[in-house]
């Protein structure tokens, strides 16, 4: 059995619906035969009648209904068509879902699915990597799977988690990433734990979601130059597995964080700051961020490629860090 990233998501949704009667899906155009903007829910409405529900075009309303249902004992999975439009639901997610347990002791086990990340031609409203906003808020778990196996297991874990979870799924990986095995049998790491995707001694390169694959692509030509990078896939952005990153930096003395998000604030900045504070005495070079350009995401594919970090730019940044 083989599976793409999007099929692993569909499989996880189906398995969760089958195993837990508290689970239901709520999104735009997901009921009936359409199956949602990216077909993540295709076929599920027929299999689970009454549990795959259409919402109006209101992310704010979707999130509010999800939070209410979670408080009433359900396990809602809210699908936004694009992570960019989660901004409309921002108040519900960060002021209500993220704080509710801290204010009342009642958990909000809602999962928000956010199709995120850039594809050429997507433009400023359909390409954003939005973890920078979401990770600022304590109380909200933020995950960003980079592999087919993680797409399955982390969605299952998100639905099973008693805290509200923002699940960032990368649109470019949907159909570009495939494994030839059953994703439910792939290795399963706990939420909150980063994975070392490639071991190396010269520079720690941290990323998540789609950018992990660019880092792994950069590792090959770098190895030919004699530079072995250690690629860490954070998997979970909040909480952040600083222990795994620090242990790696202790070995390599160098840190590069690659992200397709913007440079200002965000996970890359947080990780560099954290390592500077807690791992200073292990560093041979300043921790470095490689981010998207500090502009809105451009529409034209050429401009998009100039805006976005890629394997070549990662390799160049690694060389500069190693040769600092």
């Amino acid at each position: 059995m083989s599976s793409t990233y999007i099929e692993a998501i569909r499989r996880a949704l189906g398995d969760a619906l089958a195993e837990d009667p508290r689970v239901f899906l709520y999104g735009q155009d997901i009921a009936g035969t359409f199956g949602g903007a990216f077909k993540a829910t295709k076929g599920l409405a027929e299999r689970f009648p009454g549990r795959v529900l259409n919402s109006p075009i209101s992310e704010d309303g979707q999130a509010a209904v999800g939070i209410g249902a979670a408080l009433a004992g359900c396990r809602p999975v809210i699908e936004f068509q694009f992570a960019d439009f989660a901004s409309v639901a921002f108040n519900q997610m960060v002021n209500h879902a993220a704080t509710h347990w801290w204010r009342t002791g009642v958990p909000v086990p809602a999962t928000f699915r956010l199709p995120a990340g850039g594809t050429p031609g997507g433009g400023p409203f359909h390409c954003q990597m939005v973890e920078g906003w979401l990770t600022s808020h304590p109380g909200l778990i933020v995950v960003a799977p980079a592999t087919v196996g993680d797409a399955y297991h982390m969605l299952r874990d998100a639905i099973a988690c008693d805290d509200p979870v923002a699940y960032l799924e990368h649109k470019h990986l949907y159909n570009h990433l495939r494994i030839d095995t059953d994703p439910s049998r792939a290795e399963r790491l706990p939420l909150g734990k980063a994975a070392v995707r490639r071991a190396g001694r010269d520079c720690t390169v941290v990323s998540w979601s789609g950018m992990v694959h660019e880092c792994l692509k950069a590792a090959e030509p770098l190895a030919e130059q004699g530079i072995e990078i250690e690629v860490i896939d954070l998997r979970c952005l909040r909480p952040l597995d600083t222990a795994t990153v620090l242990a790696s930096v202790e070995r390599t003395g160098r840190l590069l964080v690659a992200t397709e998000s913007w440079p200002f604030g965000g996970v890359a900045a947080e990780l560099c700051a954290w390592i500077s504070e807690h791992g200073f005495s292990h560093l041979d070079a300043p921790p470095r961020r490689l981010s998207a350009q500090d502009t809105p995401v451009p529409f034209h594919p050429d401009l998009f490629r100039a805006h976005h970090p890629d394997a070549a730019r990662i390799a160049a940044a690694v060389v500069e860090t190693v040769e600092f």
Partner: protein
Amino acid sequence: MRLPVRMPQFGESAAEAKVVAWLVKPGQAVKAEQELCEVQTEKSLLTVAAPEAGTLGEIMVAADGTVAVGEILAYLEIAGAGADAPPSAAPVAPSPLAPPPSPAPAPAAKPPQKRSALHAATGDAGFISPRVRARLDAHGLTVSDLSVIAGTGRDGRVTAQDVDAYAQGGEPLTAVRQAVAAAMMRSWSRPLATVAMPVRLDPLLEHRRTVTGRPSLTVYALRALAQAIAAAPTPLRGRLVGNRVHQCAGIDLAVAVEVDDGVITPVVRKVDGYDLAALEAKVSGVVESCRNGRVSDLGDAIATVSNYGTFGITWATPIPLAGQAFILGIGAPVNAPEWDPASKAFTRIRQAELTLTFDHRLADGGAAGRLLAKVVELLQNPSRL
């Protein structure tokens, strides 16, 4: 074409040198490798040679001037087109120990340098990353130790691996030696001075036959020192902590005892409370315990008595322990001539040198000398002990 002649890096540590003399005058023709000037580093007198044949141009650092490594000593006018252009492949400095080429003017093939002129002139050997600094700390090394480590990093930088390799060579120090080394370093950070005085031993050697247990020279010295301290106040009884003097309440003295691979200094409390026979018994017991690996008391004391004479040493300047203001040393007894005014002839006596090495912040040579003179006086009149 004008070629700068720079001060090369001779050896690993010298950062600057003094120009002693110019061997060639401006305008004079020179051959390649001909000696241009003599420079004096901290360690040696060396010569700087012409990198190429040409004519000596302007001298930038005259005789007696000081020049930093990488700085321009003079210019050499060489045949060839273009003013001030560097030779394409010729080394800027003559020696294989020369620093990497300076960035200004940089050879075309070299990528632009981002660092300051100082960094460029000395290579990047001066950069110490936080990781290297932490490795130095972990190994108990200091930045000055870096000068003897050959850096394998960029431009000769010392890497954490270089520090580890350097520090992990050799054999580890035993625990006892580590303790001694640490204690000596703490003590050595003070200004120490030594005074010495010979003591005539014949009366003492006669006297010890009459005392139970035949007390050792160390025991006599302990007893005499305790009495000298009790008899007159001495600033050396104190111990300096910051800008305050802490006084030792009792007359507690330590004895240096050699054990396997080190020295330990057990303390005898209230030495003035023992007569010679009792003190001999006490000290013998303490020394015996130390040699059996059992030490009862290594606490604070005023001072230590070290009978280094047992090794045949006639004179030494042992270092007092960090918490003590001085150490009294006893040299090996020797035969010495003494002028006898009665018989108008030299007679043979037994004599030893006593040394007193002290913390000069607490006392001066006068106070130390008076204390030592009192000890000598008592040892020469053992019936008073």
